[in-house]
């Protein structure tokens, strides 16, 4: 089933935890609400992709691409560095759960479970990093193009 009560709880808590992280990172107060929305959106995309494709890498990759796009947009709207929205927006998808389960399995000498969980951690982590990098590279190319265009016009 796509919609469950757990999903609702997760959407609400992803909003809260993103804002809490933003405060812990001492973000300017005027960004807090947009950061909360960014966290919820990221988790919603992550959940949807995971539900339909059941690939952790794809979920991490696509959700962090959405985060990075949101960050590029809001960085320009609010005149802040993109890192403000990226760092706090990806918080709900950071694979802390599988990292913990891997550690616990290692402690219980359940090596197969540990390998599964650590692999899942790496899969999501590399997906998230890959998504952010992809968007930031595409944006830097676009911005460079626009700048050179403007210069050639003014000349």
């Amino acid at each position, binding site marked *: 089933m796509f919609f469950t009560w757990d999903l609702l709880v997760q959407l609400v808590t992803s909003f809260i935890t993103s804002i809490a992280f933003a405060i812990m990172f001492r973000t300017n107060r005027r960004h807090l609400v947009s950061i909360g929305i960014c966290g919820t959106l990221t988790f919603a995309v992550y959940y949807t992709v995971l539900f339909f494709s059941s690939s952790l890498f794809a979920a991490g990759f696509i959700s962090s691409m959405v985060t990075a796009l949101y960050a590029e947009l809001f960085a320009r709207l609010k005149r802040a560095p993109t890192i403000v929205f990226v*760092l706090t927006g990806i918080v709900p998808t*950071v694979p*802390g759960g599988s990292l*913990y389960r891997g550690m616990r399995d290692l402690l219980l000498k359940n090596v197969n479970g540990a390998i599964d969980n650590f692999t899942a951690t790496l899969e999501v982590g590399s997906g998230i*990093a890959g998504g952010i990098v992809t968007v930031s590279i595409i944006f830097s190319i676009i911005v460079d193009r626009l700048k050179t265009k403007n210069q050639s016009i003014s000349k």
Partner: protein
Amino acid sequence: MEIKPRTADTDIYAEYLLCLALDVGEGMLKNGGEISRVEDTIERICKAYGAAHIEVFSIISFISAAVRMPDGSYSSQLRRIKSTGTNLNTLERLNALSREICKTTPSLEEFDRKIHEMKKTPPYPIYVRIAASSAAVGGFALFFGGNVFDAIIAMLIGAIICFVDIYSPSKLNSMAKTVISSFLATVIAGLSVRIGINSNPDFIIIGSIMILVPGLAFGTALRDLLCGDLLAGSLKTLQACLGALMIAFGYMLGSAVLGGAV
């Protein structure tokens, strides 16, 4: 650009300019800025003041830069950065300041005054930071499927982790802080199960691991690597892996104290 021969008295301007540019760069690095941003900012500021050559190299704990002005004056300086944290507000303001300065290029004294004015702004008060930390841990306990009792214990742990972060002696390195926080989280979660407040410590521990986990550090590390800052990226990756190892170490220590896996 033609560069005149170097004389001693003109060096002072280059020294002062590079020192101020490095102040901005150092502030960014200390408050969680990316390596590429730091290098880019120092380069832009020096170029805006008319530098002929500017070379910057930075890793997570060190910046070195050299500038040469068209009049032949020359300066090279180093900065060693010992502590890093994440303060996005300061980062944002430094970014805005560097943009403004590149656009308007005020006198160096004015530039200096602007940097020092900015350092005085206070961060969030301590009780807000503690509340945020406990909201994060409690929120994650619910997020991963815990019930309300799990969330309450998790919030307590979040407050304790924040206390450890704020009140530990400043010489204590971040690895030791991570071990202590992870140890305390495991012990408190385990004890709450022993007392019988809740049946499963998993969600509480996952919640507290989420705010200790170097997931963000790992993300920025991979990003630096993929963007071509190989040295800084590999150092950050090492730092993130060590952080994860320290969480595991604290967890194992806590489990050992309670006797067996929690």
